[in-house]
């Protein structure tokens, strides 16, 4: 196994006036594996935490929590997973001490930096404008003591040829190059120390399609020639479809689904992946798409349980509806669509985390009817467990949310959705 991450989390503190008051949960409990010589895609919208995962994996950022094992033999990894399942801390530590990237000091990391490298998104800002291309490409070789300065110069020239640039470019500066050429230089720099793992952070999103195609073919060629493992981080699903074998789909800091590329892209299982795939415009196809309502959530106060539930078209009872979410929709219904039934003077408010009080009406019957009628359309109403009546108000109780886990799907992928829980309390209607 090239790299394996378990429970990787990265919380960024948000500075208050005097101390940090909250944290942005950019990456939360992410597990990810890349086999030797494998290309793995990580897709997600902007702000879903995919770049943060990439940086945490090679410790450009220090994760808040979790474990990253690098270049670990499969037998040891199986052992580790066994120990993890059994929560055998000593055994875990013994293996992690040898392979974990997170337990290395920065001086111990230096030689490891040869083995893992990264290509950044924007080739305009990731190349130092004051350095010649030869120096840019030699820099990682020298800083990791991969070879001597003289050898590095020769190798830089070779690498320029390798990525399809003429050798005389070595004396040029980045500003003399077009976007595609710059990205080639960034790739040359990344492969200069013969790495085993390459993190590609949006390698083509700053480029035009015609140039993007060149870069994709270059990456594919290098992968086949040197057998580099790659993590391809991108928002462009078609790029993943072209290069990767496995795909991880990320949303709001969590992995939603992962599995074989062909299966995930052709027959997505998670509701988010389904919506994502149907959003991708395809030439020559008019399709019916699931348009998601709203926007990705605020990660400082992420939604309860499943982070996708507020936008999910098939969310059901226990997906994590909070009292506030239900109140908002109820208010909208009672004061808007059902204004004729309830009239003025109805007031909806939360009481604690799991109960809602509707002042001004004791007509539980009507409210239950309304909930039953609208819940297919307004999913948050599904979270309502019971409607009770008190002396002068109606009391609405909500279901307790269940945190989804990665559940194995039938064909070898894993999906983080309660719909896939085996032996679940899922009502047949929602499936």
């Amino acid at each position, binding site marked *: 196994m090239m790299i394996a991450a378990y429970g990787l989390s990265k919380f960024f503190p948000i500075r208050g006036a005097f101390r940090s008051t909250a944290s942005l949960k950019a990456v939360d409990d992410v597990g990810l594996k890349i086999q030797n010589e494998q290309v793995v895609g990580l897709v997600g*919208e902007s702000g879903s935490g995919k770049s943060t995962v990439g940086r945490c994996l090679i410790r450009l950022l220090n994760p808040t929590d979790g474990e990253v094992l690098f270049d670990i033999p499969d037998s040891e990894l199986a052992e580790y997973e066994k120990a993890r399942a059994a929560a055998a801390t000593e055994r875990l530590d013994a293996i992690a001490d040898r392979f974990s990237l997170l337990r290395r000091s920065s001086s111990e990391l230096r030689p490891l930096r040869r083995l893992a490298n990264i290509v950044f998104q924007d080739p305009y800002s990731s190349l130092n404008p004051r350095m010649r291309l030869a120096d840019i490409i030699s820099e990682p070789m020298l800083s990791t003591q991969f070879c001597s300065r003289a050898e590095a110069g020769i190798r830089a020239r070779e690498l320029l040829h390798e990525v399809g640039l003429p050798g005389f470019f070595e004396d040029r500066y980045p500003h003399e190059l077009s976007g595609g050429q710059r990205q080639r230089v960034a790739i040359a720099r990344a492969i200069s120390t013969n790495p085993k793992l390459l993190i590609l952070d949006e390698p083509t999103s700053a480029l035009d*399609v015609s140039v993007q*195609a060149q870069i994709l073919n270059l990456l594919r060629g290098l992968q086949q020639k040197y057998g580099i493992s790659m993590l391809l981080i991108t928002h462009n699903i078609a790029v993943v479809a072209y290069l990767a074998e496995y795909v991880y789909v990320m949303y709001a800091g969590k992995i939603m689904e992962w599995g074989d590329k062909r299966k995930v892209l052709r027959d997505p299982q998670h509701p988010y992946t389904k919506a994502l795939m149907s959003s991708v415009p395809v030439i*020559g196809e008019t399709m019916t798409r699931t348009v998601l309502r709203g926007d990705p959530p605020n990660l400082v106060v992420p939604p309860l349980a499943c982070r996708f539930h507020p936008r999910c078209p098939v969310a059901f009872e226990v997906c994590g509806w909070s009292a506030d979410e239900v109140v908002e929709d109820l208010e909208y219904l009672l004061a808007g669509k059902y204004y*004729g039934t309830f009239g003025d003077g109805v007031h909806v408010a939360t009481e604690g985390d799991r109960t809602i009080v509707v002042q001004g009406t004791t007509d539980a019957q009507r409210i239950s009817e309304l909930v039953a009628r609208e819940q297919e359309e307004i999913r948050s109403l599904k979270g309502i467990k019971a409607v009770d009546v008190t002396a002068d108000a109606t009391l609405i109780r909500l279901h307790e949310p269940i945190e989804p886990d990665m559940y194995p799907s039938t064909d070898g992928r894993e999906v983080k959705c309660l719909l896939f829980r085996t032996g679940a309390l899922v009502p047949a209607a929602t499936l």
Partner: protein
Amino acid sequence: MSDALEIRDLHVRFHTRRGLYRALNGVNLRLARGEVLGIAGESGCGKTTMGLGVMSLLPRNASYPQGQVVFDNKDLVNLPREYSEQVGDRFSPKQNERILRRVSKAMAPIRGRRISMVFQEPMTSLNPVLPIGFQVGESIYVHDPAQLARRVLARSKATPELTRELVSLLAATHGDETSVRKFAAEHDLAGIEEQALFVWSRGDIHISRKEKAIRALSGQPMNFVERWIIDTVVRARSIPWYLSRIPILSRIVRRVLMREGNRKARELLTSLGIHHAERVVRMFPHELSGGMRQRVVIAIALANNPEIVIMDEPTSAVDVTVQAQILELVKRIRTSVSASFIVISHDLAVLAEVCDRIAIMYAGRIVEVAPTDEILHKPLHPYTQMLISAIPTLEGKPVEGIQGDVPDMRAVPSGCAFHPRCPFAFEKCREVIPTDLPHGSDQLVACWLYEGK
């Protein structure tokens, strides 16, 4: 029916310190009424310059040596063209600025009102220190203040009896637009119809709520100064000089009309699918997400019922799920609004979804125009073919890049600008600029390969 817009042989050059940048080199394009036309091309091919050129929004170092932009039988660029014909090589940005200022004045009744534009990157085109409602309202206040005044006036003139009649008319005709318009005209209530129809078309509120809201459109209280101002603006169809120059009066005018502008902004945003528009109009751009901002910018462009809307990269600043929302929105408004659209994008798949016809641009020229299906399935120009084969698909089919780079527009290759990258180039391509050759009934291709076919 005549075309909504015609661009004839348009050339645009930028005079820079490092030489003459030939951004557009003879663009010919027709936009039919009610049509959605897509413009595709790589970055730097002149898509945006063309959009800005139509709006005469180019900076002062831009000259128009040749060509016309014909809108409503008027040439929008004749002044700067005459200037650059007159001076030739002795072009001076300072003098050109004077000309462009005159053009701006002449464009005032057109720009934003009859032709409007959705600019790239909503974050930079919205003002960060003004609330959303103000910015949407302002675009109406500046371009068409009479529209706002009519709305206020109609509300003040409408009696409870008339609005009750209006409600029953709406109920009887199921919100038929023409009969409501007729009703408004008969009772001298121009301006009330759009407000009533908006309320009626809302899907999110109960019918009794709608009726109440429409009945509330009557008896707007106004003091006599306000009434006089509103009357004057409606009669003059604009704000007369004495209302905009006299300090105290101008402030009242602004207050009355901008309040109405805010109201209209709420309606527009709601109809573009923003919930809680009354809250959103008080927010500032940074409080909105990318998709919401894009909707706000589209609302501003649609505010004055324009005849042509130019959308410059409407979805490139947003994520794919939000892009899907915006595309669905564009599809919806193209049926509900009687405007023609020009959609500029680098993403052919986006255009394929919303456009009737697509034009492919390369190095400041249109190389191929055809209906969407034709261009995607039977592309003729080698550039179009290569561009389409460079797009990766979900099936992961092999992609082929186009060798070489986009040409430097300071030294455009001779003949066909694509010849250095074209695998089929022959002698003639290097020497003669290809003309638009018709192919089939509605396809134009600028390539010598199709000469005499």
